């Protein structure tokens, strides 16, 4: 409940800041009665008004029955998972698809409770298999990165 209020408050502030920024959007010259700022401001206004309502009267969360309460280890795991996803996104182009996917896939598999051997084999097979499927067969170009010299 506390977290919900804090989150909605931050959201509300972000909405107000965006509305402040959006206030200046004016067309240099215009042929139509409605300019570029009306619609986003209208939406932000309605959103902020609804958020104020939610801030005053937050709806209690319906806890799903099979969900465990958030404890410190889970929270830490989620943070690690987030950082992993971010690292994968950052290294995707630099290291190339196969290398970055193998590393990220292994880390993910470990994080979700896989053993070293299984994780390693799965992620190597996954990244090479998906590379062949997408880059070679389906014509979706993927970055080669470190392996670009191999000319495969």
């Amino acid at each position, binding site marked *: 409940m506390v977290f919900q209020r804090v989150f909605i408050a931050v959201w509300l502030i972000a909405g107000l800041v965006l509305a402040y920024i959006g206030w200046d959007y004016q067309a240099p010259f215009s042929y139509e009665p409605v300019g570029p700022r009306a619609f986003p401001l209208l939406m932000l206004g309605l959103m902020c008004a*609804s958020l104020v309502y939610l801030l005053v009267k937050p709806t209690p969360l319906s806890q799903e029955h099979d969900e465990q309460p958030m404890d410190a280890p889970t929270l830490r795991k989620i943070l690690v998972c987030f950082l992993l996803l971010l690292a994968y996104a950052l290294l995707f182009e630099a290291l190339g698809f196969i290398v970055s996917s193998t590393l990220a896939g292994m880390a993910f598999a470990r994080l979700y409770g896989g053993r070293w051997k299984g994780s390693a084999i799965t992620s190597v097979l996954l990244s090479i298999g998906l590379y062949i499927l997408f880059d070679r067969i389906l014509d979706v170009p993927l970055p080669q990165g470190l392996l670009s010299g191999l000319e495969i």
Partner: protein
Amino acid sequence: MDTLTYLAQGFGVAMTPTNLMIALIGTLIGTVVGLLPGLGPINGVALLIPIAFALGLPPESALILLAAVYLGCEYGGRISSILLNIPGEASTLMTTLDGYPLARQGRAGVALSLSAWSSFIGALIATCGMVLFAPLLAKWAIAFGPAEYFVLMVLAIVALAGMAGDKPMKTLVAALLGLFLSTVGIDANSGVYRFTFDSIHVADGIQFVVLVLGLFSVSEILLLLEKTHHGHTVVKTTGRMLFNLNEARRVFFINLRCAVGGFVIGVLPGAGATLASALAYMTEKRIAGPSGQFGKGDIRGLAAPETAIGASCCGAMVPMLTLGVPGSGTTAVMIGALTLYNITPGPLLFQNEPQLVWGLIASLFIANVMLLVLNVPMIKVFTRILAVPNWALVPAIAIITSIGVYAIHATTFDLILMVLVGILGYILRKLDFPLSPLLLGFILGGLMEQNLRRALSISNGALDILWSSGITQAIWMLVVLMLVLPVIRIWRRRQAQRKALLADA
């Protein structure tokens, strides 16, 4: 008779070897995606858009692929509901209630085939309904001007909140966030860059595939993290694989009833398969009365939601094709795909692109037959896929999602944006904010703004154009009804609670 000619033409499009192949592949991929926990029709359809693009598929083939995946997902979601007691999608939650007990009684094969049959009848009836009503609706919708369209989209957004049930306010906020996000990027009318913060990557707006995959795939990866400790045991499918004639006869009228109901709910904007299946289950439970074994493995409780899901999926395509207003999250993604092909869905689609519309409708018939036929022989393969552990599944989801996002613009920025959107989606989900209204708002936002501005340009700024015509007034009445609906529902629930308290005292 025009309709039949067009339909024949549509079958001509759908029966070409390539399109048949595409429908088959689509249904297979869809079923697998649907039965995996954490991947639903929205991700499945969104992931295939870049691939359809990369393969250079013509728009009608791409749409057939996406529709086949959509139907396949709804079929696949059922398998994990019946065998694992875990709904593969939100909509198949009702299927677990009677499907899992049936499987426990050793009638898993019967449950699977009967639900496939129910879903097939539902989809078949809904597709027939689509053939009958869609052209009429399209003809009528040509009379719609920008003002009517704008009001119609207001109705779609408000209907989301009105139908959402217990949390109308959160649904509304989510939809408004989506509407706002659609304004990011260059404004096509005036050339003003809005909310881009001088970044060239969002100059043409947030890519909707990035938004979809972030919201639905990345947040799902994070949600799966909380469930690593649980082990699943798949119920073995033994005994009879096919339902018998007697069982089919017992549920036949339920199939018909729920198909019509599901179709109607599917057509309504905002209400999707989840609502349709819940309503169908509740209604049939009430009709069966105390004689029913609902919740303990009654085949009627299995047939009702499955029929409704099948019907509402096809029904949801009616507003998408005729009005250009999506009825569900998945059809919103399909509209996004069409926009990538520079095709604006709407009433003119029936005139300008008959091969696309009728090809799609015909391929819905074909895909449904394929799914029904595939279901029995492939069930062993599908159950084996269910046994894939999370630690092998998550890397695959993460990698495929990244490929899907990278395939659009080939920039690191999109990947990072996807991760950030995913975190936001995860928090929103934890706080009970529904995500498909956000997506629907995002897709509708651009259309809504354009139509509003066009309408006000016509009237030279006078606002009364928005409520001067008969059509707009009728739609506004519906909007008011939708706004009042949740208030009444909450009031009635309070009343019931008060009565219960009084009875206790």
